[in-house]
C-alpha cells in the first residue's frame, strides 16, 4: 500500500509538559488505523495536529511529500468526526451535511443530490429536515459521519466518536463504521482508549502511552506479540511472570525456566523480564503439542459467561486460565491439583 500521510519526528509540549515525543507514523492509503492508548497519552493531540487545530513544535506532517504541519485547517483535505459531534444546532440535518459543499460554492442542486446520496449511505434519508436536537445519539453520530465524508476527504479523523454511546449501540456503530469504510474506501484514523473496540475495527493498531508510540501492528500482532510490559498488560488479562531473561528467548522464573518465542524484540540476557502468556493459551492437563508443563493447585473458579476463568497457584505464582464454559460445569474445583500446559509460541518475553 502507498503511504498517504507521514508524521516525522513530531513533538509537542503544552507549557512545561511534553505531550508528544518524537512521533513517527506512516498512515497507509485506504487503511483503517486506530490510535489506542490510555487517557492523557496524547491521542487527541496527534489527531488535532493532523487536522490543523494544533501546531507541532517539532517535526513534519507530510502529505504527498509536502509538509502541511502549518497549513490552515480549511486547506487540508481531511475531515473530522468530533467526539461530541459538533453539529450546527441551527441547521437541519441536510444543512449540516451539505455545509462542506456549501462553503466551497457548490451549486445548490448538486448539494441537494449529494446530501441525499450521503444520507442514504448512513441510512438517515428520512431525517433530512430534522434539527440535531431532534435526533438520538446514534443518529447524531451518523450525521457527523455523513458531514465528514461528503467532501470526499483523503483522510477521515475520528476522535472517540463512539464514547458517548451505550454498549449495544456502540457495537452496532462499530459494524456500521467498518461497513462505511469498506464502501467508500477512504482512509480512517480512529482514536479510542478501548482495546476491544480497537481490535474489532482496525487494520492496524498504534498503541501509545505517555506521548510515545509503543507498538504498531495488526490487531493479532499487538494482541499476541506484545513488545513491552505496557502493551502486554493493556490487552486484557495476560499472565505476566517476572523473571530474568536467558539465552535464545528463555526466561528464568520462580516456576522454572520457560522457553519463549523470540522475534528480536526481547530484552538481552540477564535483564529483568516478564514471560507473557495469554490465559486462553493455557490448557489443563498435559496435552500433545505442548512444550511447557507446570503443576499447581486450583485456587478459584469463576464462571463468566462464554468463558470460565480458573486461577491456578503454581509455586506461589497465580496463573489465570481461561476455558470455554459448559452447562454442566467444568471438572475443576478449588483445591484440585492440575497440570498446566502451553506451547512455546504462546509465551512471549518482554522487558520489565
Amino acid at each position: 500500500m502507498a503511504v498517504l500521510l507521514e508524521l516525522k519526528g513530531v513533538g509537542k509540549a503544552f507549557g512545561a509538559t511534553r505531550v508528544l515525543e518524537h512521533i513517527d507514523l506512516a498512515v497507509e492509503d485506504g487503511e483503517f488505523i486506530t490510535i489506542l492508548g490510555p487517557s492523557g497519552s496524547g491521542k487527541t493531540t496527534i489527531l488535532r495536529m493532523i487536522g490543523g487545530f494544533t501546531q507541532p513544535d517539532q517535526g513534519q506532517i507530510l502529505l504527498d511529500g509536502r509538509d502541511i504541519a502549518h497549513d490552515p485547517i480549511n486547506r487540508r483535505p481531511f475531515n473530522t468526526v468530533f467526539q461530541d459531534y459538533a453539529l450546527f444546532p441551527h441547521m437541519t440535518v441536510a444543512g449540516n451535511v451539505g455545509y462542506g459543499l456549501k462553503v466551497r460554492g457548490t451549486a445548490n442542486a448538486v448539494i441537494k443530490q449529494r446530501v441525499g446520496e450521503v444520507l442514504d449511505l448512513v441510512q438517515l434519508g428520512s431525517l433530512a429536515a430534522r434539527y440535531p436536537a431532534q435526533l438520538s445519539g446514534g443518529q447524531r453520530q451518523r450525521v457527523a459521519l455523513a458531514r465528514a465524508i461528503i467532501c470526499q476527504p483523503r483522510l477521515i479523523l475520528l476522535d472517540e466518536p463512539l464514547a458517548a454511546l451505550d454498549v449495544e449501540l456502540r457495537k452496532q456503530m462499530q459494524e456500521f463504521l467498518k461497513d462505511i469504510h469498506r464502501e467508500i474506501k477512504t482512509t480512517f484514523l480512529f482514536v479510542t482508549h478501548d482495546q476491544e473496540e480497537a481490535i474489532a475495527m482496525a487494520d492496524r493498531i498504534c498503541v501509545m502511552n505517555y506521548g510515545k508510540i509503543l507498538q504498531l501492528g495488526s490487531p493479532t500482532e499487538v494482541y499476541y506479540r506484545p513488545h513491552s510490559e505496557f502493551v502486554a498488560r493493556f490487552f486484557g488479562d495476560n499472565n505476566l511472570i517476572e523473571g530474568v531473561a536467558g539465552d535464545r528467548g528463555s526466561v528464568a522464573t520462580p516456576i522454572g525456566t520457560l522457553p519463549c518465542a523470540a522475534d528480536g524484540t526481547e530484552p538481552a540476557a540477564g535483564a529483568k523480564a516478564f514471560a507473557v502468556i495469554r490465559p486462553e493459551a493455557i490448557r489443563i492437563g498435559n496435552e500433545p503439542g505442548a512444550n511447557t508443563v507446570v503443576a499447581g493447585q486450583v485456587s478459584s473458579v469463576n464462571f463468566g459467561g462464554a468463558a470460565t476463568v480458573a486461577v491456578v497457584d503454581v509455586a506461589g505464582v497465580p496463573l489465570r486460565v481461561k476455558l470455554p464454559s459448559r452447562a454442566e460445569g467444568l471438572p475443576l474445583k478449588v483445591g484440585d491439583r492440575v497440570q498446566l500446559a502451553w506451547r512455546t509460541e504462546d509465551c512471549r518475553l518482554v522487558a520489565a
Partner: protein
Amino acid sequence: MTAKPIEADRIWRGIALLAAYGLPIFFILLPLCGFLVYSLFWVEGTELHYELTLVNYRRFFTDEIYVPVLRQTVVLCLEVAGLCIAFGYPVAYFLSGLKGRKKYTLLMLLLVPLLMSYIIKMYAIRSILGGNGFLNRSLIALGIIDQPLTFFVFNLNAVLLTLSVLLLPFAILPIFLSLERIPKNLLEASADLGGSNAQSFFRVILPLSLPGVISAATFVFVLAIGDFLTPQMVGGQSGFTFGRIIYSQFGTAFNWPFGSALSVILAAVVIVAILVGARFGGEKAGVHR
C-alpha cells in the same frame, strides 16, 4: 422536637412565596392598575373629576401632536437600539475572543458605567457633545471646522447619541453572553469542513448569537423609550419625545389623568416590544435544545 422545624419551614416557605409573588404585584402591578384607573378620570382647569371616561384616550388619538411624537420616539428608540447593536456587537465579539483574566477585567471595565449615577454620565456626555463641548473644540483645534457644529447639539441627534452611549453596556452584555455560549468546536467544525473565517462568522457565529442580539435590542429599546431625563437634558427645544410629554403632563400641565393615559399607551408599546423580542429570541433559541 422534630415538628417545630417543619412548622418553621412551612412558615418560611409561605413568606418566600408571598415575597416572590407579592412584591411584583404590590410594586408593579398595583401602580400600573392605578395608572389605568387614573387614566379614566378627567381634569377641568385644576379640578380633578373622578368619573370614568375615555376622553383622555380620544384626545391622544385625535390631537395631531401625540401620535406623531410617539411614532417619532419609537423610531428614535429603534435607531438607538440599532446603534447600540452596531457598536456593541463588535465590542462583544472582541471581548469574547480574548483569553482568561483579560476578558473579564475588560468586561468589568465596560460595565462599570452601568453602576455610575445616571446624572453624572449625562453631564459628562453633555460636556462632550455641547456647542462648546469637547468634540466641537477638538474639531476646531484640529482645524477640521471653523464654527462649532450644531447637528448634535440640543436636538434629536443629541438624544440619539446620548441614549446610545448610555445604553451601550446593556447591548454588549447579552451579546457577549450569547457569544460565550457558542461551543468553540463548532468553529473548528466549520473550518474543518473548509469554511473560511468569514464563512464561519456569517454561517455559524452570527446566527447562533442572534438570540443575544434580540434581547440586547429589546433591552435597549425598552430602556430608551422609558427615558425622559435624557431628552430633557440634551434634547433642547426640538428634541421632543413621548417621555417628555408624559413628564410635562405630570409636571407643568398638571393633568395627571391624561399623563396616566399616555403612560398606559407607552406601557402597551413596551409590552409589545418585549413580546416581539421574546417571540423572535425564543424562536432562534428554541433551535439550540
